[in-house]
């Protein structure tokens, strides 16, 4: 009995351990992030060299005037570093909830996020 209890406890621990790590789901395909996305007037572009850009046409900003950032995608954790011209950095982290060829969604710890669709 003690042996079975030990096996059950071990399985539970393994199960918990597994559930605590980020898990790639079928909804997130990291290879699909590259390209240009938009959610309404908000646009984001992810380039293969780890840089990207964001602009909002509602504020009369064009892609040529977009602000750049660097990014990394580790599992579903999307990290953005926005380097300002005045020598400062704004760090942002998001949890990607969906990423495929057509749609891309993420949100931060406060529940704020975007649901993009790819711009052809």
């Amino acid at each position, binding site marked *: 009995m003690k042996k079975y209890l030990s096996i059950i406890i071990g399985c539970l621990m393994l199960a918990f351990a597994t559930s605590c790590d980020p898990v790639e789901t079928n909804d997130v395909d990291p290879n699909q992030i590259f390209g240009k996305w938009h959610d309404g007037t908000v646009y984001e572009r992810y380039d293969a060299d780890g840089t990207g850009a964001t602009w909002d046409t509602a504020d009369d900003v064009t892609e040529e005037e977009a602000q750049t950032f660097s990014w990394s995608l580790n599992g579903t954790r999307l990290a953005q570093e926005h380097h300002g011209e005045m020598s400062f*950095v704004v760090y942002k982290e998001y949890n990607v909830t969906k990423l495929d060829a057509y749609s891309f969604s993420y949100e931060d710890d*406060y529940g704020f996020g975007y649901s993009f669709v790819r711009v052809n």
Partner: protein
Amino acid sequence: MKKALKIIGISLASIIVLAIIAVVIAFSVVTSSNKLTNLVKKYVPEFVTCEVQLGKADLTIFKTFPNIGVEIDNVALINPMQGSPSDTLANIEKLIVSADLKKFWKEDEIVVRKCVLENAFVNLYTDENGNSNLNVFKTSEDSDTTASSFNYLVNLEEVKLKDSKVIYTDSRSAMKANVEGLNLDVKGNFKDNDIDAILALNSENVTLDMPSIVLNSKTLSLDFDGNVNGFNQIDGTLKLATPDICLNLGEDYLKNDALNLTLPLHFCLDNMSGTLNKAQIALNNYLINLDGDVEIADNSDINMDLDLSTNTLIVEDVMTYLPQSVVESLSDLEFAGKLSVTEAQVKGTFNDSLMPLITAKVLTDKASVNISSLPYPFTDVDLEALLDLNLNEKSNVEVSQLTAKFHDTKLNVSGFVNDLTDNLNFDLNAKADLPMADIKGFLPKNVKVQGRTDVNLDAKFTLDDLMKSLDDYNLNRLTANGTLKIKNFAFDMDTIHASAPKLDVDLILPASRKIKGRKGAYVALASGDLTAQVGKDMNAKLKGFALNATADDFADAVEKINLNADLNLSQLDFVYDTIKVNANSPAITLVTTPSKQKSKGLDARVIFNSKQLDGNMGKAYLLNTESLKVTAAAHQNKNKEDFLNKWNPEADFSLKNAEVQVDGIAETIYIPNIDFLFDSHELGFKKSTIKIGQSDMSLEGNVVGIKEWIADNNNLMKGEMQLTSNFINLNEIMDLTSGLGSDPDTLAVQETENKEDNPFIVPKGIDFYFGIKTKKAIYDNFDLNNLGGQMTVKDGTLVLQEIGFTNKAAEMQLTAMYRSPRKNHLFLGMDFHLLNVKINDLLTMIPYIDTVVPMLHTFDGEAEFHIAAETYLKSNYQPKVSTMRAAADIEGQNLTVRDITTMTKITDMLDVSVNGEYKIDSLDVQLTVFKDQVDLYPFLISIGKYKAVASGRQNLDQTCSYHISVTDSPLPTRLGLDITGNLNNLKFSLAPCKYKNLYRPERRSDTDNMTLEIKKKIADSLKDNVL
């Protein structure tokens, strides 16, 4: 001459005596022709030394009736001489002589009733030694028939030479004379070497050929009525007439002209001198009256002292009689009209190389002179002049008075014209009533003048120099003093027009006579009122105009001119396009010289000095100054097109006590003094002071690259200026410079913008550095003390670099960047450090911080605040929220809590006891701004025995989501609190303690470490910029 006359006389006498002897013999003994012939042959050698050939000699009754004469056929005198054209001296085909024998026998008088020589040929020859073939008649020395024994009175009643030919050759002078068709009729008497004769000669053709004289006359008649005494003194009247005579003395003097001479003369053969009394020479229709003396010297020189006058001459005809050399020297001149010569004298020697001096008073009547290089002929020329014609040296004319017309110009001239036959040399005073249009032909084609002027000109010049100067405009050859008083003056050259109701001109040539070392022309212009225009846009009114100038080398183009000009005005009103300038008593000095490098063109230097000066550029700029001095220079480069590269201008401006008004700027700009040096490469400000509104500035420094910037706006104009001030209102300064140099497209108003917005547009194409040192300044709501630092404006970007200043709230350091790529997309970035700032004052100074970090208004006290932020702005300076990025660090000690209500709510819920003392022992906050989200990284708050960690998000819509964890408390519980909702309606709810281990190093998780590392990075990067 005298000897020749003697020889001729003796020869003639010998022939006559010979004939008389024949007659005597015939009457006494001869009864037949043969006997008579033989007798003549027998006695001829008694009189003639050469061979004599005789044909038949016979008595004649009928041909000499009522006297009996002798007729001899074919009389020939043969006297060969080497060099003679013929060995025959004379050949007379028929000789008829009859004499009055009664008179011969009884009265010792030889009366030749008739002596006719028909078809005679006479060959006279003199060799180089002076031996003549005519020396064949025996004289007293070689014959018994001596002069002393020949004391007969010879009375010639009829001596004729018919259809004869005479040739004369003189080897000494290489002279050849030929007289053909000669008929001679002589009447007179001869005794004791005295001849009283009437001679009539005519010839079909006479030629005379000498080395320097060729004469040919057809149908020549010569009559002489007079006497010859002692073979020496000739008195009588000689008349010569020919309808066709040619005379060449090296060049043609007469050519197929009709010549009539009437010479009452008294001539002495001993000294070969004579007197003409009322002699007259008629050449064609022109008469020359002669009185005076003539002498022929031993060397054949002819010395003359004659008075001379003419009838009215037609000038064109007279010109044809002038020597060719004279005609050629006057080839550029055409004369016409009437001319008369009076009171003339011909005095001097005439020979192969000399001409006598001729003086004469010359009068013309409505003559005309056309000089080929002048645009108009001189007409109505009435001249009274004294001619001094010396063909050996120089011939001169003294012009007593000359009136003429030159197109519409009336001329009155007096003076001298020298060297007539070579290079006409004028020394004249000319007065003229001159319509300015008449000098059009003397000016370059692109120059027109109008008006009417009174001219008074003293001038010295040669015609050659005048012609050259009119051709190449080099006036240094001419000498002149002139005054022109011009009415209704107008001048046009290309696009330049000038006019004046009255203009006085003084002219001096060459300029060196007025100013040492100057060349060309000196001109002084004076006008009370002069207007000038250049093109359609530039106009100037000049009052009290006085110009003194020297100009040289203005033949080809403006850039060749050597010009020194001093212009003084009592008033200048100048308009160029929208620019208007009114100057009081301005003075301008202009010097232009051609560049030493041909490709460069003109070098010019201008000094402008004015007292009171007002100017404006439309309504945009108004200027009023107490004094303005500009020293400018230009160096032309003809290979360049644009203004700066073509002229390479330099200018030194000095302005004192000026006021400038700029449209759009309410404040007047006061300039106590400004002094700057401008050239195409650099604008250099010497110590200059300006007052703009509330601001005062002293500026010093340089701006370079102006030419490159104007040529191409992609190039940068660079400036390095030091700006010191007691007070600056930066708001006014930004208004002053807004929009300079920007592309109009950048400024175009787009539909999304508010058209009324007028944001500050940073100038492009410039790289300016300002070193700033200001005691006090204001910007927006800031009061800035001891402001110092650097400001750069570089190609559309304005940077305030490490500007340090203090105000009542803090010591501050600001680095800011502002760009204006387009009107509705303005970039603002700043790196702002406030040390020892009072939070309340900070929020008052920069209310926007309260929006970004609303929790700040909860506290009060001194803190350090470091923030780096950037955002794009709309045209109304409102931030584009989607572009907002910022990071901030706030550190404080011993802060008090202002929002006690909220703090009480929090402490109550967290079971924190503060006993009514709401003080924050320490605060260390890092936050970032991204778009509308302000994220506060977890930070520690110490309140007495309690410590708490707070974090959260603040949105610009006033919503928030905060969490506070109590980490240190005397109580055993560690509570957490979530604060959510709108700032005006917060919701508080207890929650698990989220950060209980964040500040416990031994228990921190990786996430905690990462959070603290980011906080440190943010704080360190911000503080790194503090000086």
